[in-house]
């Protein structure tokens, strides 16, 4: 899951996609004697890009969500001992931008726990979408996420969801934050990405911070592997700035986390903070940097408080 980013080109599936633009540009500009490996990687990239589903908010299926809530409840209650506080802080109706800190690698258990809590609290009838990295949606076997309201991270999808009056969950830290090393697990790190603030200002919707703890203890994350990602051109080809290295079952040493892993049963606690009405609090012409610092400070303070409550890692 990740933040929406601005890009100029429009892809065939209706998204303004940095990666697709980069691939096409690279293909045009590349010399005819390019290496076999480069051509191979570019071919894989094209395959992956072609698998990214065309965005359709109507793919969210309330009946499917309802029928699967008991299974999700079992997972959240027994395996992750989930606890979600402050759902009453989310406005009862209307569009709202939920901004979360992102944890747990490519499998993000806190998203599951929050989706369950939100759907049970407000009912599956209330439209709720989550933005996800393109790669997540193009992975085989994960198409069911679209029925839960997961859509590819793009400015169009985010704008459309909010214009439709939905609640939208974004993770500005994206792949950068979700793969942070385990010793940084109690740190909110959006990597200075501020697109979510511009989105909230443009759409005139409140920001509701959602702070979670425990997700980054579901595997032992050792490194983001950003140098490795740069060397392998993953940034240009797949919009991946990281190639994470972790220790996780069943693989042991897990590089890339492309096949997922079995998350460790760490206790997950989520706290929803009161809504931030940007123009009411920061004036008619607000400073994006000031809002960013404010949101980060609020979320970090809450995460510190949740960390102080936690007596043992994993156990909670």
């Amino acid at each position, binding site marked *: 899951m990740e933040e929406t980013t601005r890009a100029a080109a429009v892809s065939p599936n209706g998204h303004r996609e940095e990666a697709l633009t980069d691939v096409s540009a690279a293909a045009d500009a590349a010399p005819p004697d390019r290496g076999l490996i480069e051509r191979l990687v570019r071919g894989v990239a094209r395959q992956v890009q072609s698998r990214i589903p065309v965005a359709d908010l109507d793919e969210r299926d309330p*009946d499917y969500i*309802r*029928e*699967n*809530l*008991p*299974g999700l*409840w*079992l997972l*959240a*209650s*027994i395996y*992750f*001992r*989930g*606890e*979600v506080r402050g*759902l009453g802080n989310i406005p009862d109706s209307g569009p709202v931008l939920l901004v979360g800190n992102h944890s747990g690698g490519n499998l993000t258990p806190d998203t599951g*726990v929050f989706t*369950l*809590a939100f759907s*049970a*609290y407000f*009912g599956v*009838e209330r439209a709720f979408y989550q933005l996800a990295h393109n790669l997540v949606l193009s992975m085989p076997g994960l198409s069911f996420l679209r029925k839960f309201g997961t859509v590819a991270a793009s400015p169009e999808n985010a704008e459309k969801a909010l214009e439709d009056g939905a609640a939208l969950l974004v993770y500005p830290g994206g792949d950068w934050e979700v793969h942070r090393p385990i010793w940084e697990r109690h740190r909110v790190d959006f990597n200075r990405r501020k697109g979510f603030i511009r989105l909230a200002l443009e759409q005139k919707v409140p920001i509701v911070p959602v702070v979670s703890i425990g997700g980054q203890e579901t595997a032992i994350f050792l490194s983001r592997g950003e140098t490795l990602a740069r060397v392998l051109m993953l940034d240009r080809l797949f919009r991946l700035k990281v190639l994470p290295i972790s220790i996780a079952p069943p693989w042991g040493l897990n590089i890339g986390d492309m096949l997922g892993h079995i998350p460790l049963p760490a206790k997950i606690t989520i706290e929803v903070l009161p809504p931030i009405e940007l123009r009411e609090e920061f004036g008619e012409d607000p400073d994006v940097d000031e809002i960013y610092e404010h949101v980060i400070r609020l979320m970090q303070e809450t995460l510190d408080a949740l960390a102080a409550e936690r007596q043992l890692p994993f156990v909670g």
Partner: protein
Amino acid sequence: MRVQAQIEVSAPPELVWEMVTDPSRYLHFMAGLTRWEVVSKSPRGLGARYRMLMQVRSAEVGGLIEVVEWDPPCDLAWTSVTGLDQRGRWRLRERPFGRTHVEFRLSYGVVGAGILGLVAERVAAPTVQGHLRRSLHQLKRQVEHEQLRALAAERRGKSRVA
């Protein structure tokens, strides 16, 4: 899945009925309840609607419910309109010496949830059962306490007149 709990209250059924039909009291005596809001014009009676939520482990579950049976001071039943499928019932029966037998039943589930749904219902049952049991004890305490206060006030009134 159906869970139920029962208790004997040392008060007449009318007093207990007054308590279980007053939506403003629910958050005071119902254990695990996090929301009980009136969403219909009429706050009580046949057709009254409430939005309710109950904390069951990792989630607050519930939804919109509607009163479908109203037989004072004996039976009150509701069924879900949205959210979790549920049917609840208060069953009050008069006993000798001004006592009342109170039974609280709750059936719940999610139609179409399959095997995981059945497992989840059974896993949730002890928590829901605990909420029901605690609710009845709190109901008993509050009704009996109110009756004592009412009797004491009556005695004070009589002694002043005398």
